[in-house]
């Protein structure tokens, strides 16, 4: 009995050790980034060949963080990204779930063709669409309130909405909602209809309240690319005050790169994602498990 307990204890310890090892390996890049953000450049490279690279030792300070705010309007970029990502997520959930609801619940001729066409867009990489999309968004009308008059001009370049609206409708989000809605019994719709509910009421009061896991998955899978968006804002935004955080990283790659500042900025823009991950850890894991997509 005693021997069994000992061997069980040893087994648990070995399992924990292996887990800790994997956790450490996964954490190394983030730890390196955070630690390096506190060191001067010369020390970052000096520590590179030893374990000191992962330890806050030596000449530690917040100088790199101060320099980041001197070099880049980091607060502005962060606020822009938070706003753009939040609006994209909220509107993405609303629009994509509505679309998926229609495709799942309504009896419309040709809906299979429509659904297939939507899914087919998944195989087209965004990079191939980017340049034509720039041309398109530049043709769209732009409405601006100037005092009491509404002014109309052409082109969405250099605006917030050009960073949001093209990414609201998303084939993968529609697919996720659609598959989830299919698992909700249609009898619930019929019961609601007997009670006098219309389609929107069924969507709002029956289906969506039961689709929490799908909503969380879509929220996460929409947020991450919105936060990490780089190519598109690079192409469509010219004014500094409208740029998102990822563009900011390029500010540091000058002829003489200050790696400490790069690490400080990278740490700053990682913090919101880490906070979000900690807050919604379970949903993150479920979203990866249910969608098979890593953010």
């Amino acid at each position, binding site marked *: 009995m005693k021997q069994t307990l000992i061997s069980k204890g040893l087994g648990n310890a070995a399992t924990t050790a292996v887990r800790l090892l994997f956790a450490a390996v996964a954490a190394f890049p983030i730890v390196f980034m955070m630690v390096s953000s506190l060191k001067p450049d010369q020390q970052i490279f000096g520590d590179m060949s030893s374990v000191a690279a992962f330890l806050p030792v030596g000449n530690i300070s917040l100088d790199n963080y101060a320099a980041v705010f001197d070099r880049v309007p980091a607060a502005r970029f962060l606020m822009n990204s938070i706003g753009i990502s939040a609006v994209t997520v909220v509107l993405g959930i*609303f629009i994509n779930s509505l679309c998926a609801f229609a495709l799942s619940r309504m009896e419309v001729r040709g809906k299979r063709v429509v659904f297939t066409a939507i899914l087919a867009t998944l195989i087209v990489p965004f990079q191939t669409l980017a340049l034509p999309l720039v041309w398109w968004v530049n043709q769209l009308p732009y409405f*601006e309130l100037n005092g009491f008059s509404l002014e109309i001009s052409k082109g969405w370049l250099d*605006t917030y*909405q050009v960073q949001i609206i093209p990414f609201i409708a998303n084939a993968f989000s529609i697919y996720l909602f659609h598959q989830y809605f299919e698992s909700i019994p249609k009898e619930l719709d019929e019961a609601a209809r007997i009670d006098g509910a219309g389609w929107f009421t069924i969507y*709002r009061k029956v289906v969506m309240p039961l689709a929490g896991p799908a909503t969380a998955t879509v929220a996460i899978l929409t947020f991450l690319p919105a936060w990490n968006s780089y190519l598109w804002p690079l192409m469509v935004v010219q004014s500094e005050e409208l740029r998102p955080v990822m563009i900011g990283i390029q500010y540091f790659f000058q002829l003489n790169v200050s790696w400490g500042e790069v690490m400080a900025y990278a740490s700053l823009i990682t913090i919101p994602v880490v906070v979000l991950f900690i807050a919604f850890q379970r949903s993150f894991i479920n979203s990866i498990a249910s969608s098979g997509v890593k953010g």
Partner: protein
Amino acid sequence: MNKRFTRILATSVAAVALVGSLGACGKGSASAPSAGSNEITMWTHNAGNAEELKAVENIVDSYNKSAGAKAKIKVQAFPQDSYNDSVVSAAAAGKLPCIVDIDGPNVPNWAWAKYLTPLKLDADVSKNLPSTVAKWEGETYAVGTYDVALAMLARASDLKAAGVRVATVEKPWTKDEFQDALTKLKALGKWEYPLDMGTAGTGEWLPYAYSPFLQSFGGDLINRDGFQSADGVLNGDKAVEWAQWFRGLADQGFMAKKSGKDSTQDFLNNKSGLLYTGSWAADKARAAVGKDLVVMPSVDLGNGPKIGGASWQWGVTSGCTNSAAAMDYLSYSLKPENLAAVAKATGTIPATDEAAALIPAFAKGGTNRIFMELSRNYAVMRPETPAYPFIATEYGKAVQDILAGADPKTALDKSVKAIDANIKSNGGYKN
């Protein structure tokens, strides 16, 4: 549940309203001049480079305040690494500003693509460093306020310990002397690799840094007579010799096939003894190494030392509705005091002797004067053809393949085939 959904819906409505409000307050400043505003926009690549941006903004401010200003110039800065992508996107959308910053070797391509219009400047640029004036098909399309130069940095104490002479502009190292120097430096046992050529570099660094060696051997990126084929120059005997020599530096353990991410920092941390880099690293190195630092010219591999010419320059776009004002501003920006201000802020080589005289480091006898001499004596323009961006990409791939172990002749033949096909498919890049 219903309450929760109502909240979601309310949030969605709020989000729609937010989009509206973002739209209302979130329109950036237009690049094109608005009717009657007499304002033109200038794009520059130096967002994040506070010193250079400030110097440019100061020139713009002083122009805007000057009595003779033909328009108000407005500066929009972009990060350097992504600048070209922003310009190409804007060109596709027809939203280019009036004045743009351009990396010198790309000027012919942008001129060919009709992004740029030939310059008609009041300023006399005949005395500027040749590498700061970008021409294509007989017309000047861009002018730079500065250039940069490649050189070899070392510690005099290391060279002395190894018994290696300091190379000078008058007497650079020959190929054999370079081999001998590397052998002796390696024998000191201080470094795993005595030479750092920045082999981890990517993009424009590869042709900028390594094609001068090819040219010093007698090869080139393209046959400059008509710029229609690379056959015979990029894959000829001299080019193969260059490739074998370059690969040999790694095979003999003189340099890493892939250096560290920051070669300058590695040199300062004494991880290498000889650093091949640009003039931009000199001030940082001098601050750390002090008087022990020596700046030497590149190696003479048979046809004299060569270094890449042309850095960032300014041009006027063909769609600019007030090109007279744009040209006027460019002429203003080329005044010696303006050239000196930018060069001083960036540690780069001022475009004229007159401007150099205003900066102690670049004046005769100054610590950085050598870079000016290197530029005047050894700079070779990267091929002035619209095909250059494609050639640069193919050459970069060949360099990386050769370092990774590919057969030099096969790798170079592959590049030549791709380059020639590209030129043919673009109708010879005729104007």
